Each structure stands twice: as structure tokens, then as C-alpha cells.
């Protein structure tokens, strides 16, 4: 028995080693860096343990607090809106009987594009002078003047949220569609026989049975949203790698701040402390989401 176990471990040891090297070590290094002071000796980074001062400094760090607020707005709005719209799309696609493959492919398209490409496409579409969004809205009479979507403090964050929702609708829709297809038609039939409306069906059959799928989507979307970087850089940053979260810091999410502190300011320890905060937040979201999932029994 012990020999069999040894065999088993020897088979998984290469994979285990890879996981340790590319997951465990970086996380450990991040944690160590976040409680260290960084100095440069002969142009090389050197660290000495210094305690939790970088974490306590965050409490009075205006940029961190602004980022926390912006990340909160972004995460809640983006996750909520993508869940609602994704559910709507899933319900609509579930009704399609002809050309199912084509419709699903079309729905998936935004998710197939790399986020950087999507960000670049929308950057141009939001351009105040040459962008498609202004052109359409002005031609249908919804806008009188060209709107600088990414330069206006009132529209920059909503624009970023919209693009993130647009990218993730397919992901939400496909998972929820899979859930919808597991619901037996007999249950809807039973509601109809009892004289229930479509709303009754949705409220008493669809939503309860979709709950585990909704929670999985909520969990994954929340993790994606907390870590967002690429889309915001493409829309509100710049091609020179600067990530000031323009205009006036309104799009400065955690991902941008982490990059800015490390790469632009060479403040690697402070940057690591913020990354650890994001890591903890992600764990908390994951923990509660998993707790809410129904158990097998």
C-alpha cells in the first residue's frame, strides 16, 4: 500500500514541482516583499524584513484609498451588470431553435478577443473626434456635441465598466446557458398547468435552479474584476506604459496602482503590499462564494 502511494507521488511530483515553482514561490516572494524594505545595492534589489509598516501606511495613502473606492465601484457595477445582461442573453439564446451554433458563436465573439485588443478597439470607438460611438449617437440625435468619453470625469469610469461588461457578457451567458439547459422542461410545464405566468416560471423555477451557476459566475467575475488591468490601461492609460488612471484618477483601479508603484516608481515593497491586499480580497470573495454553493448532498 505504502509502495503504491510512493509510486503515485513519484508520478505527480513533476507537476507538483511545476506548481510549486510557478505558483507557490511567487506568492511566497510577494508576501515576503510586502513585509520588507527594499534597497538597491549595485543596481540589484535587496530586501530586509521590516514588519507590516507598508500595510499600515496604506490606511493613510490617498492613492490607495482612491483605488479601493474605484475598484469597488468597478467590481460591483461590472459584475452586477454583466450578470444581468448575460442572463438576458442566455435566456434569449436558449429560445433559439434554428442556427444555434451560429448564434452561440456570435455571442462568444467579444470574449474570444484578447482584452488588450478589445480595449484598443473601444479606445478608438470612444475617440471624441473620429470615434464610432459619437458618430452614431450624433446621427440618431442622442448627442448634440462630441462627448470626450475617456476625458470626462463623469463618463470615463462608466465607459470602462461598459467595455468590461461587453467583454464578459459571453462568458456569463455561456455558463448560464449551460445551466438553463439542465432544467427539465417538465418543471416549466408544471407551472403552466398550474396557471403560472412566464414570470412565475422565471422566479420559481429558473432562478432557483440557476443559483449554483450564478454563484460560480459571480465568483469568477468578481475575481476578474478585482484584478482588472489590461482593459483600463488600454482605455484610460497610455501606450507609454503610464497608468495614471485618467481623468483625474477616476479610473485608478488597484491593478494600475500596483503597476505604477512597482514599474514607474520602483517601490516594489509598497506595490507588493497592495497586491497582497488584492489577494486577500480575492480569497474572501472566493471563500464566501464557495460557502454559498450548495453541497453535493
Amino acid at each position, binding site marked *: 500500500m505504502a509502495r503504491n502511494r510512493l509510486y503515485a507521488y513519484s508520478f505527480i511530483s513533476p507537476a507538483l514541482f511545476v506548481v510549486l515553482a510557478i505558483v507557490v514561490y511567487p506568492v511566497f516572494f510577494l508576501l515576503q516583499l510586502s513585509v520588507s524594505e527594499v534597497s*538597491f545595492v*549595485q*543596481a*540589484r*534589489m535587496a530586501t530586509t524584513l521590516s514588519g507590516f509598516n507598508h500595510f499600515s501606511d496604506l490606511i493613510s495613502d490617498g492613492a490607495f484609498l482612491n483605488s479601493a473606492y474605484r475598484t469597488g465601484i468597478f467590481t460591483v457595477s461590472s459584475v452586477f451588470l454583466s450578470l444581468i445582461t448575460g442572463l438576458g442573453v442566455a435566456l434569449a439564446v436558449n429560445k433559439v431553435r434554428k442556427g444555434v451554433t451560429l448564434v452561440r458563436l456570435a455571442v462568444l465573439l467579444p470574449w474570444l478577443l484578447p482584452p488588450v485588443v478589445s480595449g484598443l478597439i473601444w479606445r478608438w470607438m470612444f*475617440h*471624441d*473626434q*473620429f470615434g464610432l460611438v459619437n458618430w452614431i449617437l450624433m446621427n440618431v440625435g442622442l448627442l448634440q*456635441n*462630441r*462627448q*470626450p468619453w*475617456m*476625458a*470626462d*470625469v463623469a463618463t470615463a469610469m462608466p465607459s470602462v465598466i461598459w467595455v468590461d461588461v461587453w467583454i464578459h457578457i459571453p462568458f456569463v451567458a455561456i455558463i448560464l446557458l449551460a445551466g438553463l439547459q439542465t432544467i427539465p422542461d417538465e418543471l416549466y410545464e408544471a407551472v403552466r398547468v398550474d396557471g403560472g405566468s412566464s414570470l412565475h416560471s422565471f422566479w420559481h423555477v429558473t432562478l432557483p435552479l440557476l443559483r449554483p451557476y450564478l454563484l460560480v459566475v459571480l465568483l469568477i467575475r468578481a475575481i476578474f474584476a478585482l484584478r482588472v488591468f489590461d482593459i483600463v490601461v488600454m482605455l*484610460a*492609460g*497610455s*501606450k*507609454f*506604459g*503610464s497608468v*495614471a*488612471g*485618467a*481623468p*483625474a*484618477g477616476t479610473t485608478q483601479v488597484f491593478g494600475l496602482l500596483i503597476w*505604477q508603484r*512597482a*514599474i*514607474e*516608481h*520602483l517601490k*516594489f515593497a509598497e506595490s507588493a503590499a497592495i497586491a497582497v491586499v488584492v489577494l486577500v480580497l480575492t480569497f474572501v470573495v472566493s471563500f464566501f462564494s464557495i460557502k454559498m454553493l450548495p453541497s453535493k448532498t
Partner: protein
Amino acid sequence: MTRLPLVAALASILCACAGDPGQPTALDGIADGEVGGSITFLNNGPFAYDPATVINMDRFDAAHPEVSVSRVEDNDILARLATLVAGGGEDFDVAEPSAVNVPQFIDIAALMPLDELFPPEEMARYPKGTLDAVTGRDGHIYGKPHYVLPQVLLYNKRLLAEAGFDRPPETWEEIVAYGKALTHPEKDQWGYAFGLSPNRDTYHIFASYLYQAGATLFHEDYSAAFNNDAGRQALQFMVDVLNTHKIAPAGITTYDGDAVQDLFIRGNAAMVQNWGYTIDRALNREESVVRDDLGVALLPVGPSGELSGYLVMFPLVATSSTRNPATAKAFIDFMTNAESQKRMLIDEPGNAVVPPDIFALPEVRERVPFASEIGTMIEASRAEYHPKSGQVVTILVEEVHAAMAMTKSVEQALANAEARVNQLM
């Protein structure tokens, strides 16, 4: 007998073509044995856009067969330098970062001093102030200018003439007066524009107006020097162009130099303050509608009454971790010698070089459009050094953008920026 003069002539032509090895350089004193082996050069952006760099590297290869240069291109040199110091290793030997990113790496000893590339006769070629951005607080020079991007005023002669102007504006007041007459949003036509993308562009543009107003960014001790009347005039002018006079598109706070250039060459802006490369694109791009109407002028003067601007520079630097310092220096020396600089100016329109003597060459005068304006602007421009340059750029981007978005007053933004900059040292 009759073939001898022909052979001699051919030999001399060949020598002239390969002529650079014979050209005196600052490193002539370095023993031959020290230059050799391999180095890696990290170019700022794709080589496809840097034909002169490629030509000069080919010339270096021909002149130094004992050296092997690996050519690497990257759009984000800053990230490469940061990961180099964070992760260790000898990733590259020579790089071409933006000068504004250089000081913080000098400050942590990540770059090698290059003083020996500046003997007195070479130093004399660089006008005062043009090397400040790469001169560390220890007085050593850590980068040699590879190319620079001077700012100039580009204007659409036809639009100005139609509005009754027979010369370009020469002062801030004229910019506003011309801008108002030339702005017609209903025709998608704007009087004036500059690019205030939330990155080092904002730093460069603010510094440019600041110099025109008669102030500087920093005092000698690196404390902020911009929170004064001149600073307020500079930032107020930028805010007013956008929000009060409304002579620029509302989106300029998201525009980089390319976006400003697009606006200009498509005829949507009558005047722009932009980088010199716009000249080549305005003259040669297929979509340019200003090909026959392009005017280039010196930047208008501000309250100081003096011609000035910010000098954006891309120096060649050598990492202190290089295992081949002599070759790295020899490479930098070759890539920035007078012949290479001439090639840069002629073969890569838009990228300029610092020394005025290159602009005086008849070949350059003939082949580089508006060489006189570009040369004059470079001589009048300058840049400054701050050891915490990365953080200073962030601070100025945030505060200038807050003023532009009118979430802070000009006074508040400058006071906040001053306090934050002063906390750094």
C-alpha cells in the same frame, strides 16, 4: 599601368564608404583588445520604424566585425529596466529609454557613467541645458543623446489665410486670438491642440509652457519650482485653451502625439504644438490633407518673452550590470558620432539630434524639411533632472489633469503638486 589610378580611386571610394572607423571618436583611446565580444541593444520600439538606427547598427557591424550586437526591440523600456533591477541578470547592455525615465535608474546605480564619451570637443557640440536630463546629481553623464523630439508649432497655411492671418502666431495671446477665429466645431475644425495623454506627454507639455512662462520645474535641491506666478500662468493657459476659450477638442487630455498629428493632418486642427515627426507625416502620409499647406514655426513665446520648450530625448545608456562595458561604450559612441547623427537626421525624418553643427551641414539643409526651425527649437529647448523622476511624472500628470478636468483649481493643483514633489526628497 593605366589601371593603377582606377584601382586607387576605387580603393579610396571604398574607404570613404566604410569611412567611419577612420573618423575620430571619443573612444579612440580605448585599446583594441577591450572592444569585442557580444552585447545586447534594447531599442525603444520596433526597428521597422527606426531605419536610421538600423543603418547605423549595420555600419557599426561593418566597422567592428569583432563585436556581435544582438538587436532587441521593446515598446516599454521602463518596464524592462525596472524588471532588470528587480530580478537581476544581464538582460541587455545598452538601451534607449526616454530621458525622463533615466534619473531614477541613475539614482540606484543601475546605469554606467559615460563621461569619457564627452571629451571637451564633443561636449562643446551640446548647447547648455541639453544634457541636464542625463547628468546625475554626482555630476557624471549617464546617457548620450541618440535622438530628440523637439516641439514645434505646425499650422495649416490655407486655414490661416482663409481666416485672414498671413503669419503664424508668435505669442500665447495670438494663439488664443487665432484659435478663436479658427475654431468651428460645427465643421469639426479646431483652432489649436496639444496632446496631454496621461503619461510623460503631460509632463513634457506642462514643462514646455512652464519654460515659456519663465519658470523651471525644480530648484537645485530638487524641490518644486513651479508653484509661482509663472507656473500659474502656464497651467492657467492650458486650462483656458480647453475650458474657457474652447479652442481645442475636449478629448485632448487623452491624446498622445500621434492623435494630435492625426487631427492636424486630416485638417481638423488649424494649429498644433506637437513633436517634430509630425512634419514628415504631414508631408508624406497618404491621408494628409495638409501636404501643400504645411507651415512650421517656432513655438510661440509666453509671458517670459523667451523662446523655449521641453526637449524630449532618447539617450543611449549602458547598464552597470553589463559584462562588456568597453564594447557597450564603443557602440554608444559610434551610434552617436557625427556621421551617425547626420544619418539619423536624413534617413529618419522626424527624429532629430542635438548638436547644431549637424543642422548647419548643407546636405541636411537640403534634405531635411524645416531643418532651420527644428535646429533653432532644439537649441532653445531644455530638460531637467529629478532623481525621483518616475514619481514626479505621476504627480504632475495627476495634478495637471485634475486642473484640466476642473476638479481642482490651478492654484490647488500646483500647491498639491509642490507639496508632493517636496516630500520625495
